[in-house]
């Protein structure tokens, strides 16, 4: 395989992928492609088909229909070869707490079939990358959360995978460690490693180049964080700071200018068609309804706004087997 060819062809190519569990359609007609070095985020409610899709891409679950090529290998035809080319790191990654940093690396290196000089070189690389060289002999149980996270990443990349799967990799770690971790991921992406991130954290999703939003087994949106924010909302957001909040909320529920109103902390978020044009009329409307001195500013929608808009309000689907499907997916993650 020439370097040029592998740079040109997508790292992952998914065509009309489908997975059924009995009568339940967990993943339906999903197609997308990921370019080498891209960081793609998978977002979706629990039980939406995120984990099922990722398990198929990892060669752990056979698709019912459609095709998935990972590093140009068909996951249905050669799952073993796929598993050799990928790395997997979970927030619940099972590091051995009573082993040292170096012992963990050696153990996982062994699992990936590394030995001798190559294992030593990869261990050195992983220690440097994770900034753990000075802590090679520390017990994992003595490490802070952010360091464990980096060690888990080091273990996942020992065999130089072309594609890295990350499952909520930085949930719960302090923001400084989280930023350091994502710097590492961006460096890897710069070196051509493709990263697939599955997460509920909107702040993790912001680090992804593109986001695939999965809901009820289908791909409902695919785009950069900025694109999703821009196009999903179908309007613009105004933040209203005023008192009393209840009275303003009640008034805005009846207001023809407001497409939607939601409480957000001590403020209200109001969806309008045109923020610049509606700001003054909205302040006047509130004053007419005995809410004086409302402070109204235009704000950027967040990824969560986009998510909620695209995935829709209300409860997830309730067809039979839904809960069972969700249970299977999350069980596999743990």
């Amino acid at each position, binding site marked *: 395989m020439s370097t040029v060819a592998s740079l040109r062809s997508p790292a992952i190519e998914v065509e009309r992928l489908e997975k059924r569990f009995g009568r339940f359609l967990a993943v339906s007609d999903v197609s997308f492609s990921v370019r080498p070095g891209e*960081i793609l*985020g998978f*977002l*979706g*409610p*629990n*039980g*939406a088909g995120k984990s099922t899709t990722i398990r198929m891409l990892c060669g752990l679950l056979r698709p019912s229909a459609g095709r998935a090529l990972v590093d140009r290998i068909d996951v249905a035809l050669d799952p073993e070869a796929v598993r050799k080319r990928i790395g997997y790191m979970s927030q619940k990654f099972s590091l051995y707490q009573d082993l040292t940093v170096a012992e963990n690396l050696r153990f996982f290196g062994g699992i990936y079939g590394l030995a001798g000089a190559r294992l030593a070189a990869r261990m050195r690389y992983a220690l440097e990358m994770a900034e753990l060289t000075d802590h090679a002999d520390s017990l994992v149980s003595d490490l*802070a*959360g952010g360091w464990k996270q980096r060690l888990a990443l080091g273990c996942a990349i020992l065999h130089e995978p072309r594609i890295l799967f990350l499952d909520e990799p930085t*949930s*719960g*770690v*302090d*923001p*400084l*460690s989280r*930023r350091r971790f*994502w*710097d590492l991921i*961006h*460096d890897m992406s*710069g070196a051509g490693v493709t990263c697939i991130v599955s997460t*509920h*954290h*909107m*702040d993790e*999703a*912001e*680090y*992804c*180049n*593109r*986001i695939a939003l999965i809901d009820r087994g289908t791909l409902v949106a695919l785009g*950069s*964080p*900025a694109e999703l924010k821009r196009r999903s909302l179908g309007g613009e957001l105004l933040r209203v700071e005023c008192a009393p909040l*209840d009275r303003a909320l009640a008034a805005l529920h009846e207001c023809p200018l407001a497409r939607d109103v*939601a*409480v*957000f*902390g*001590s403020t209200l978020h109001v969806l309008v068609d045109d923020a610049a044009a509606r700001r003054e009329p909205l302040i006047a409307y509130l004053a007419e309804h005995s809410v004086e001195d409302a402070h109204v500013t235009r*704000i*950027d929608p*967040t990824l*969560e706004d986009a*998510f*909620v808009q695209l*995935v*829709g*309000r*209300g*409860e*997830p689907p309730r067809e039979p087997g839904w*809960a*069972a499907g*969700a249970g299977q997916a999350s069980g596999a993650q743990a």
Partner: protein
Amino acid sequence: MSEDAGTAVLLAGLSKRFGSVDAVQDASFEVRRGEIFGLIGPDGAGKTTILRVLSGVMAADSGSVLVDGVDVRSNPEQVRARISYMPQRFGLYEDLTVDENIRFYAEVFEVPRRLRLDRAARLLGASGMAEFRRRLAGELSGGMKQKLGLTCSLVHAPRIVLLDEPTTGVDPVSRREFWQILYGLRAEGVTIVISTAYFDEAERCDRLALLHQGAVRYCESPVALRARMPGALLEIVTPAARAARDVVSGRAGVLSALTVGDGLHVHVDDAVRRGSEIGEALRARAVPFGQIREVTPNVEDLFVALLAPEAKAA
């Protein structure tokens, strides 16, 4: 800090050690009646310990805690009757239905029979779970389980609710619904203390305590906290984020640069001046970029800006 009729919770000089670890050190704050107060911090910051002490399930090593004017240490039973505490793993019975779980907690909290049905119906309605009353708790999604946990915690109509990371692992749609329930409770005058490791949830609180390594570092409203941001945050939209980072890092007035999915976030001392300088530097190095604009920092940005200098020194 003094206690008055507007105070729901008063924490003064709270400390708690586990072995050699200072889980909480000299923490003080006041929660006002009817507000949503956030305990915001990463894992290990002391959130759970503080909530356990507030709820009376754990004793502090030192310091005092008044809940609704009652001293937790001397009258834990009295405190427990006034509050509701929802731990991270709330004890739902997975093989009982939604209704049966609520009935069970109504018994535990000794809610008079004549009140039970009405209250359960109202709570289930408010949480959008009315149609799932006969579903087994074990078959609910993560978000629905948390809503049921909250419903069970509210069955004795507490005036103060303590919630330990109720939205962890919950998807954004369910999370937003959960917060709408909290806003409904707030409108009824219920005081809510909620912990979270999701920094974006800080913005949803009326006031918050920013916790780091067992200490309360800042305690105020999100708006007041934002005003503490030294300098400003610039967003540079670019497909060449790493190249842009190399150009920007280390420049005069640049405090930090963070690669994100759409480009780069740069913390600078002066938005206007550094914005134009950075634009010129990027053009000179032929790094493509769309626009540079000032964006509002979020609470995570603040945490990093305020606490990073000392973390480096440590």
